[in-house]
């Protein structure tokens, strides 16, 4: 149970980060608070869009789905349902793979790091690890 709670909390924080980057991308925010990183450079590069849609929006959608699924998995009738755990793990794996791709673009193509993207990458990695481990553990329903 504690793992699913952690997934939900992380997904919420990830959703906020992705929303922040998406709002910047659509022009609702003036500038990114990035310190010494290269957020603007990364976010204005051609890799910040995929199939005409801002990459950040994929993050918003992915984290929202993880959040919704995680919250559902906390409900008493689903706590012992392995399908929820499997779906969470599958979704987190897709998100983790996408994160690896984006991080590789930053490191090897753009040679620039966006701190907010790093935050998102850490969150998604943590969610992936938790989703895999929660699936392996047999569920002990709450009393």
């Amino acid at each position, binding site marked *: 149970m504690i793992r699913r709670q952690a997934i939900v909390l992380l997904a919420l924080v990830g959703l906020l980060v992705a929303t922040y980057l998406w709002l910047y991308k659509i022009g609702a925010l003036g500038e990114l608070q990035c310190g010494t990183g290269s957020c*603007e450079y990364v976010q204005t590069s051609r890799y910040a869009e995929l199939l005409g849609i801002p990459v950040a929006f994929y993050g918003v959608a992915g984290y929202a789905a993880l959040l919704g699924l995680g919250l559902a998995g906390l409900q008493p009738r689903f706590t012992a349902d392995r399908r929820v755990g499997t779906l969470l793990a599958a979704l987190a794996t897709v998100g983790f793979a996408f994160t690896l791709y984006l991080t590789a673009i930053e490191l090897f193509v753009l040679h620039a790091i966006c701190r907010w993207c790093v935050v998102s990458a850490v969150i998604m990695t943590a969610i992936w690890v938790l989703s895999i481990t929660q699936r392996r553990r047999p569920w002990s329903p709450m009393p």
Partner: protein
Amino acid sequence: MKGFYMLLVAVAVIGGGALWYGSQRRAAPPAPSAPLPVAAAEAFHGYTLGSDSAPIEITEYSDFECPFCASFATVQMPVIREQLIATGKLRWRFRDFPLPSHKYSRYAAMAAQCAGEQGKFWEMHDQLFNNHQWAQTGKNPRSLFRDFGRAIGLDLDKYDACMDGQRYAARIEASVQEGEALGVRGTPSFFVNGRPFTGRATSDDFKALVDSLTKKHK
């Protein structure tokens, strides 16, 4: 469990509030000193070399990543500068025409425009063409261009702000659109007093052309 949901709500409220605050700040009018993107409609028609009273003007549509443009800039252009521009016979106008097939040409055009903002367009132009190895490596030239900027004495803070804000993206795009409207398909392309130049792009041919046009003007 109740405590967990309270924590979730607290994170959502704080995070959502921060986002809302950020978007409201954006809604405020920008400070007068804020560097705004330069609009396409600014009527900028390229940096020029040479006297305003020169009877002949050649406009070059060029791409900083294009090897032919680099060859022209490093082999032919020095002679043209010395024999035609410095003597007052010719004025040279540079227009950006970054080709979509080139990964960093638009970025390089931006670097030149940002240097131009500090009065060093031609210095950056020369750096980009004289050190053209960057165009063959495929590596991100960001730090190399900053080194070029440092070498020609740019204020790098201003340069970075200009580059990060893509301040001249609209200007570069306007140049591309004007070139396309004139029929430019490749680079370098030249127009002599507004007419397309279809001869060989060598200093000898330009010199012969300028000499013949100068005689006609007299």
